[in-house]
């Protein structure tokens, strides 16, 4: 019975996810076509005849609605069109070649950042209002407020330019190339996790069942990590989900500073240059990742927190 309800729940969610994606895709398509300018890089020198020729070649001379229907049809067949910024390369090639490094850096950053952040948060909560707490909180505030490109430039200057222990940039030194960009990107999840965990843990650590654990003679570290942390993790999952997506989809500045061949810049660049099919593909990709992660987060809630129950599932 329970399984049946789960299936129903998941099917409903999947339907809404598909609907969300459809609405995002359609809205983006029409909004993007309202952008001023043409998708051609050389637009300030093209003659009218050349412009007509290019519009015809790429089908931009067709009525908007016809193009929309064609596009949806093509996407369903797995054809995402070509990028006009990248010599008519299929957009699918662009995304597949560029997603890897961004995905790797994003996951490394979330993993490293949240682990260290959780650890610092627990330490801070255990030493509430003492020097260690102040230090961790200060770190969290700094991490939240300093933009990651400042951190990136500082890291590059210290570790690559001055100490010469890590590469300045470029994606040609295996794992070593990923260390500095990962560190720069991990500051934000680190600070965020530290802040959330501290706040939650301070509350949890003063509750009755923790007192009981203390009375039973459990060590503070064991109390904090086994009893406190599980409850403190719940709100963190809410923020970590979308943050993971945003990190996996790359960072414009950090990727530029370390010369990483990621996807980070493509979203902004494609919008600024009216690269229609790239805008569409990147939007679809990012939204799909986001709805999937939100869905997974909701499922995860059920597993971590027995109090949360979805409608229909007992």
């Amino acid at each position, binding site marked *: 019975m329970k399984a049946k309800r789960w299936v129903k729940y998941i099917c409903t969610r999947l339907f809404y996810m598909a609907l969300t994606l459809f609405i995002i895709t359609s809205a983006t398509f029409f909004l993007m076509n309202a*952008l*001023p*300018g*043409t998708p*051609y*890089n*050389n*637009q*300030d*020198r*093209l*003659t*009218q*005849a*050349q412009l*007509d*020729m*290019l519009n*015809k*070649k*790429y089908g931009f001379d067709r009525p908007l609605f016809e193009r929309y229907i064609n596009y949806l049809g093509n996407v369903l067949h797995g054809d995402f069109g070509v990028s006009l*910024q*990248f*010599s*008519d*390369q299929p957009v699918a*090639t*662009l995304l597949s*070649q*560029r997603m890897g490094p961004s995905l790797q850096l994003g996951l490394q950053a979330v993993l490293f950042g949240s682990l260290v952040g959780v650890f610092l948060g627990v330490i801070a909560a255990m030493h509430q209002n003492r020097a260690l707490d102040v230090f961790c909180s200060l770190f969290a505030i700094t991490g939240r407020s300093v933009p990651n490109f400042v951190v990136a*430039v500082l890291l*590059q200057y210290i570790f*690559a*330019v001055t100490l*010469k222990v890590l590469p*300045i*940039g*470029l*994606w*040609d030194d295996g794992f070593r190339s990923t260390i500095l960009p990962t560190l720069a990107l991990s500051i934000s999840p680190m600070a965020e996790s530290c802040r959330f965990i501290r706040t939650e843990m301070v509350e949890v650590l003063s509750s009755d069942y923790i007192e009981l654990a203390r009375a039973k003679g459990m060590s503070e570290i064991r109390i904090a990590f086994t009893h406190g942390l599980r409850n403190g993790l719940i709100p963190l999952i809410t923020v970590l989900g979308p943050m993971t997506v945003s990190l996996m989809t790359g960072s414009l500045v950090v990727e*530029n*500073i*370390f*010369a*990483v*061949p990621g996807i980070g*810049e493509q979203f902004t660049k494609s919008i*600024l*240059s*009216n690269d229609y099919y790239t805008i569409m593909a990147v939007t679809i990709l990012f939204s799909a990742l986001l709805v999937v992660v939100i869905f997974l987060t909701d499922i995860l809630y059920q597993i971590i927190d027995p109090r949360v129950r979805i409608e229909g599932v007992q």
Partner: protein
Amino acid sequence: MKRILALVLAASLLLSLVVVSAGAEEDKKVLHWFIGGEVTTVDTGKVYDTISGEAVFLIADPLYRLDENADPVPNLAVALPEISEDGLTVTVTIRDDAKYVDGTPVKAQDIVYATQRIFDPAVGSQNSSVADIKNGAAVRAGEVAVEELGVKALSDTVVEFTLSGADPYITKKLADTSYSPIPQAFAEAQGEGYALSADALLSAGPFVLSGWTGTEISWSYVKNPNYWDAENVYFDEIIYQVVKDQNTALNLYEAGQIDGVNVDSDFIPLYEGQEDLVKINTLRMTNLEFNINSLQGDGSYTPHPVLSNENIRKALVYGIDREELCSAVLNGAAAPAVGVIPNGIAASPDGESVKDSFGTLVYTDLEAAQEYFKKGLEELGVDSVELRLVTSDTDESIKIGTYLQSAYQTNLPGLTINLANVPSSVRFAEMMGYNFDLALGGWTGDYDPTSYPNQFETSYEHNHAKWFSDELTAIINALKNEDGTDFAARWEHLRQANQYLVDNAITIPLEQAVKGYLVNTKLQNYITHQLGYSVFDLSRAYFAE
């Protein structure tokens, strides 16, 4: 014991391999070079910007190359072209020993095919700096078949171009990589996938593209052993690296990881006076453009409420200090404009520069500017005017825009400039809507100086001012259709066009861009270009021992 011995032997063998390969690596002559963005295309027929221009330069084998004085010298061609008396027929004989990377010989038919591709609507090239080949426009418009284009092979080594009008700059134009051979059978076999990766390309130039599959930020050029002039090609490999962050690029250069890197105007003062700072005076003009007649919704044009007034326009031409703009704002990454035609593009029949022959037509004269402005306001019957200045949102455009706003408001009391920094595509859409006040624009023409005044000719789509003038049209028509190779008449008409545009204040020429680079001082024998799609010719460069 035997096992240990075997292990030791194996280890020493491995070690020696490493040592040997390291030694081989050291002997390899490699150049590391910087590029500002990902390749936009490696199809020589589609090249339209400096990035694609750089990307194809080492793999292309154009008919001519430009020497250090920007004079064309034979490359794939055996000699300078034979040009008929009327200037309309240009015959080029190519080398019979040129080969593609795979050993296939290069034929004149491949030049014909390459030229056709530039105009073929099915290929869809954005290249706008093309020679005026007969039927070119009609082929692009799809009105006549591509075979009707004025280019044909007379034999395996002789190609004949037929032009629409006599063009004394045709040899320089044929030095463009667009006129490099493309093997038709190979390209057609690749179909839509042609030149979308290094494997889908067959080139005949000094180097071969390697390790590029479409979107990389690093790729390399490997020496082509089949190149007809391979003995004068020094580097075994030239590695290109896309670095978009200026700080990172400079850090990589200073760490010795890159041998040549671009320097933005902000960083030029740091390197001023250093031996490795290379400055290239380009022929890129930055103009502050006016809209003089504005396009209305019904397709008609009405005079711009403020800028149709000639005195107001003249006040803006003389009310700005170009020296200060170039030195204080752009840190020397620009030279003050002298007129609409850039200085350095060509010399007069007497060998004089544009500046010396035509004079410095645009300069600072605050008194005159204020007088013009006062007169203009009186004619308009107002005390003050407000204009919107639209610029792109790049660092440099914002800097120039902010400077212009502050300088004009100080120099011309009563003038308010509202600044709008927008993405380039938005700025350009506004300019092409022919309904704006002021816009920071630019123009890079070709080696024919006519390409500069031509942008203000009545029928030209990039005449953003929408200045309608039969007088200017007559001068441009004379330059395009009558003067031919009569350089004295041509120079006189260029003088008239330049003077006309300044006298009527149709645009405000501001500056000519100077590009800054840091180049490893060991690097010798490279050539820099003032114009065209590639800045550096590294094909014959070498490291001084």
